[in-house]
C-alpha cells in the first residue's frame, strides 16, 4: 500500500485524543448539580467491570475511526484481496541490446530478461492491451499470446539500440490506449551507458527489472579502423581495446572467420592504440576484423573495418615547384607509396594543363594571372587573389583527423576566391580565408611550396600529406566507407544501387536509404554490380562497458508518478499489473470509518432513549 498524500498520515496523531480523553477523563471541568448522584455511584459500582470494558471498546472504536479517517485523507492506494486487476494498457520494454547477451552465471543474461518478460506477457488478460517494445525499436502489439511469441523469438542485436527511445515509445502507446490503468514494464540489464537520458513518464507507472549479479570483466575491441581507407597498397589498421588488463588480438583481412587471412597478432594493452602497418596482396574492397579471445560478451570481441587496396597512383612533378616537392615525391616513390607516371600531376598553377592535379600557387606574383587563366581553362572554380605577404598560421578543420597541415606558418599566399557554387572541401585556412582546398580531382595550395612562402615543405607532415593528397584526392573515386551501428538508418551515397546482405547477395537500396543490419560485419556497397564502398557495422563502443546503473539513479532517470526498480523477476512480472490491482482505498476506509462511528454511536447510546436528552450544561 502506498499513499498519494502521505503528509495527511500526521492526522493519525489525533488518535491520541480519545486515548488522552480516556486517561484524563477525571479532569472534567464542567460541574453539574445532580441530586441523584447516589444512583450514578451505585451504577458505577455495580457495573464497573462492564463499564470499563465498554469504555475501552468505545475508546478503541474512536481511535479506529480517527485512524481510518487519517488513512483515507492520505489517499492510500493498494491491492484489494481477490479483486484481480482492472483492464490495463501495458507495454513491456525488453532490452535486447548487445550487452544482454553477456554470459552471467552460465547463461546469457537475455534469457532471464526474456523469461521475466514472458511471465509478464502471459499474465495479461483479454481485457488488457499489451505491446512489446524492444531496444532496437521494434513494436509488437496484440493478444497476450502474440506478444509472448514475439518475446520468445527475440534475440539480442549487435548494438545498443536506444532504450530511452523504446521507453518513450512504450509510454506513448499505453497513454493512447484509453485505459485508466497504464503501465510500462522494463526488463533490462541495467547497463549504465544505456540510461544516460531522462525520460518523462508522467502518469504512467513504470517498473524496471534488473537481474541480480555482478557483470563480468569485459574485454572488447572498441576501435578498428583502416587508415587511410584507400591503401596503395600500404596502409594501417588502428585498433583500441577495452579491459582491465592486456589482451591478445588478431587482425585479419579478407573474408570472415577461418577464411580470413591473419594480418597480425599481438598483445594489446587496455585502452592503448594499436597500429599495424601492412601492404596486403589483396586488391579492391576487402573486409577486415580485429579479434580478441572470447570472453563472456562475445559480441564485442570482434570489430570490423573495410579498406580499398590497390596500386599507388602514378604521378608527375613540375620541375618549377622546386626541390622540396621533387624530393618528397622521390621519397614516396622509393617507399612504394607513389609511382612515377602520368595519372596525376603535382604542378605549378601557371603551368598546369589538366586534371587530376595537385596545383601549387606560383612563386612569382606576376604569374598569378597565367595561373588563374589555367584554372579557368581546366574548369577549376577557384581563383588566386593578389599576393599577400603577411604572417599567418594554417588551421585544419576539426573534421580532418590527420592534422598534417595544422600549425604550418604562412608568409606569402594568394587568397583563394571561389567562382560560383563550389562543391569543395577546405582542408586548411589561414585566418578566415581558405588556404588549401580540394575538389573533384584537384587540390589547390594557395602558397608556393617553398620555405620563403610557408614552412610546410620542411615540416614532418609534408611527406604524408603529399602522399595522402595524391592517393586519396587525385587517384580517382574508389568509393566510400559508411560506418554504422546495427539497425541505423543511413542515406545511401550517390550512385549506390545495392548493399550486400550477410550471405553476400546484393539487396537493392530503396528510397535512397540504407538500414544497417542488426549483426555486426562488413557489407559491400554496389554500383553497377561492382563494389563501390562498404558499410561497416559495429556495436557502439559504449555497449562494451557493462557497468550497471544504481537502481536509485535509474529511478531518477525516469520521472513519473510511480517508478520502481527491482531485481526480482517474478515479482516484477506480478507487479506489472499492480497499478491496476492497486486501487484507491479511500472509499473502503471511509466506509470502515462510518461503520466504526456507527458502532460507537450505538454503543454510546446504549439501550436508552436519548430522544429527549438535554445537555449537562443545560442541567448545570
Amino acid at each position, binding site marked *: 500500500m502506498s499513499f498519494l498524500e502521505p503528509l495527511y498520515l500526521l492526522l493519525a496523531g489525533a488518535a491520541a485524543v480519545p486515548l488522552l480523553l480516556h486517561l484524563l477523563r477525571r479532569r*472534567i471541568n464542567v460541574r453539574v448539580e445532580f*441530586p441523584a*448522584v447516589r444512583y450514578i455511584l451505585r451504577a*458505577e459500582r455495580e*457495573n464497573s467491570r462492564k463499564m470499563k470494558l465498554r469504555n475501552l471498546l468505545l475508546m478503541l472504536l474512536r481511535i479506529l475511526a480517527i485512524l481510518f479517517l487519517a488513512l483515507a485523507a492520505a489517499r492510500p492506494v493498494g491491492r484489494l484481496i481477490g479483486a484481480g486487476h482492472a483492464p490495463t494498457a501495458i507495454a513491456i520494454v525488453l532490452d535486447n541490446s548487445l550487452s544482454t547477451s553477456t554470459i552471467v552465471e552460465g547463461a546469457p543474461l537475455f534469457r532471464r530478461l526474456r523469461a521475466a518478460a514472458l511471465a509478464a506477457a502471459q499474465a495479461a488478460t483479454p481485457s488488457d492491451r499489451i505491446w512489446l517494445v524492444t531496444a532496437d525499436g521494434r513494436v509488437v502489439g496484440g493478444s497476450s499470446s502474440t506478444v509472448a511469441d514475439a518475446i520468445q523469438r527475440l534475440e539480442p542485436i549487435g548494438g545498443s539500440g536506444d532504450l530511452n527511445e523504446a521507453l518513450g515509445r512504450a509510454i506513448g502507446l499505453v497513454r493512447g490506449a484509453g485505459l485508466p490503468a497504464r503501465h510500462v514494464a522494463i526488463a533490462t540489464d541495467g547497463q549504465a551507458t544505456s540510461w544516460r537520458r531522462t525520460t518523462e513518464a508522467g502518469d504512467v507507472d513504470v517498473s524496471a527489472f534488473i537481474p541480480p549479479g555482478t557483470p563480468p570483466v569485459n574485454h572488447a575491441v572498441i576501435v578498428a579502423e583502416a587508415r587511410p581507407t584507400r591503401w596503395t597498397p600500404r596502409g594501417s589498421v588502428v585498433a583500441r581495446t577495452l579491459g582491465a588488463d592486456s589482451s591478445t588480438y588478431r587482425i585479419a583481412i579478407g573474408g570472415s572467420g577461418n577464411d580470413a587471412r591473419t594480418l597480425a597478432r599481438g598483445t594489446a594493452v587496455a585502452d592503448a592504440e594499436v597500429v599495424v602497418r601492412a601492404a596486403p596482396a589483396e586488391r579492391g574492397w576487402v573486409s577486415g576484423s580485429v579479434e580478441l579471445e572470447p570472453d563472456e560478451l562475445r559480441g564485442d570481441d570482434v570489430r570490423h573495418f573495410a579498406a580499398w587496396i590497390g596500386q599507388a597512383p602514378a604521378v608527375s612533378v613540375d620541375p618549377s615547384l622546386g626541390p622540396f616537392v621533387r624530393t618528397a615525391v622521390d621519397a614516396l616513390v622509393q617507399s612504394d607509396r607513389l609511382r612515377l607516371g602520368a595519372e596525376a600531376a603535382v604542378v605549378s598553377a601557371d603551368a598546369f594543363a589538366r586534371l587530376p592535379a595537385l596545383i601549387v600557387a606560383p612563386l612569382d606574383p606576376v604569374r598569378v594571372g597565367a595561373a588563374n587563366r589555367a584554372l579557368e581553362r581546366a574548369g577549376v572554380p577557384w581563383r588566386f587573389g593578389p599576393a599577400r605577404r603577411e604572417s599567418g598560421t594554417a588551421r585544419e578543420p576539426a573534421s580532418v583527423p590527420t592534422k598534417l597541415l595544422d600549425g604550418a606558418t604562412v608568409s606569402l599566399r594568394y587568397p583563394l576566391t571561389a567562382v560560383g557554387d563550389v562543391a569543395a572541401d577546405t582542408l586548411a585556412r589561414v585566418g578566415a580565408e581558405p588556404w588549401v582546398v580540394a575538389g573533384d580531382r584537384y587540390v589547390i595550395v594557395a602558397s608556393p611550396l617553398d620555405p620563403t612562402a610557408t614552412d610546410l615543405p620542411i615540416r614532418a607532415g609534408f611527406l604524408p600529406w603529399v602522399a595522402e593528397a595524391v592517393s586519396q584526392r587525385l587517384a580517382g573515386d574508389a568509393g566510400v566507407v559508411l560506418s554504422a551501428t546495427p539497425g541505423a538508418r543511413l542515406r545511401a551515397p550517390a550512385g549506390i544501387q545495392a548493399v550486400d546482405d550477410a550471405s553476400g547477395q546484393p539487396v537493392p537500396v530503396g528510397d535512397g536509404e540504407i538500414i544497417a543490419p542488426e549483426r555486426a560485419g562488413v557489407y559491400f556497397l554496389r554500383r553497377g554490380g561492382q563494389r563501390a564502398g562498404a558499410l561497416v557495422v559495429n556495436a557502439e563502443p559504449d555497449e562494451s562497458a557493462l557497468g550497471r546503473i544504481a537502481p536509485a539513479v535509474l529511478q531518477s532517470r525516469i520521472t513519473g508518478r510511480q517508478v520502481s526498480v527491482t531485481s526480482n523477476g517474478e515479482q516484477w512480472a506480478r507487479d506489472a499489473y499492480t497499478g491496476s490491482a492497486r486501487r484507491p482505498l479511500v472509499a473502503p476506509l471511509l466506509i470502515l470509518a462510518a461503520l466504526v462511528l456507527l458502532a460507537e454511536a450505538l454503543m454510546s447510546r446504549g439501550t436508552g432513549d436519548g430522544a*429527549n*436528552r438535554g445537555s*449537562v450544561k443545560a442541567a448545570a
Partner: protein
Amino acid sequence: METTRVPVRADLFDPSSLASLGHVEIIARWVVDGFLTGLHRSPKKGFSVEFAEYRGYQPGDDLRFIDWKIAARANKWVVKQFEEETNLRATLILDVSRSMAWTGADTRITKLAYAEQLVAALSLLLIRQRDAVGFIRYDDRLRTVIPPKARTAQWRRILHALEEEGAGLKSDAQTALMHAARLVRRPGMVVLISDLLVETNEVTEAVRMLRAVGHDVTVLHIMDPAERDLSLAGEAVFADPESGVEVPATVADVRSAYRHTVDEAIAEWKQAFSSTGAGYEVFTTDVPFGVPLRKAFAARQRLP
C-alpha cells in the same frame, strides 16, 4: 343558539405550563375543580346526611343535591352540602431539602414546586371533604408543623407554610414521620411527598411504626425526568447538592447502568413499603397533577 360550555380540566395540564399561569392557590383550585369535574360519583365521596350549607352548583355535582326550590325562586342553582361525619385526619409531609429544589431542564418545574402544588391541591381536596388536614415540612429538621384541622382556614395556613424557607442539606424523613405519628393520635392518613434521596431503612422503619399504630401511609415519590432516566448528554462532574459528593462521568457511558440502577432502587422502595403495608407511587415532574392527586385521593377513599 345554544352554546355548550366545556369544563376545563386543569388537573390534566402539563405541570410546568400550569405553574406559569398563576399562584399556587389559584392553580390548586383549578386542579381540584378539574379533578372533581372528572370524578365519578360514589356513595362515599364527600356528602353526608347532615346539612351544612349551600354552595354554587359546579359541573359534575350530583343533580340530586340541587335545591330546586331555591332554583325556582332565585333562578340560581345551588347544591346542598352536608356536614361530613368521617373522622379522618390526614397529615401531608413534604420534603423541602435542597435536592427537591432541582430540575433537570429549564422547561420543567422543580420537584419542590411540583410537590408544593400537589400539597396545595390535595389539602384543598381533603378539606373540601371535611377531612382534617395537617402539614409538616422538613429538611434536615422540621421546618413547619401544622396540626390537622378541618377548617377552611386551615388551607390558608398550609399555603402560607409553603412559602416558608427550607432547602436544608439533608432529608430527615424519619423525624418528620415520627412527629406526624405524635400529631395524629388516632389512626389516620399520612402522605409523604419526597424525592426519597435518603437511606431506605430510616424511612421504612418510620413507616413501619406508623403502620403499627394504624395509620394509612402513602408515599409519593417525586422524581425529575432527568433523574429517572439520566436524559442528559455530555460529560461532567455530577455533584450532590446535599452531601457534596462529586462523581465525574460521561452520561453516555453510564446512562444504561444508571437507568437500571434507578429501576432497581424504585423496586426496592416498592418492596420495602409494600412489606409495611404502605402505598407507594412514583411520579415525575412532567406528569399532570391529576395523576398523583388521583392516587392519593384513592388512598383516602379506601379509608372509612
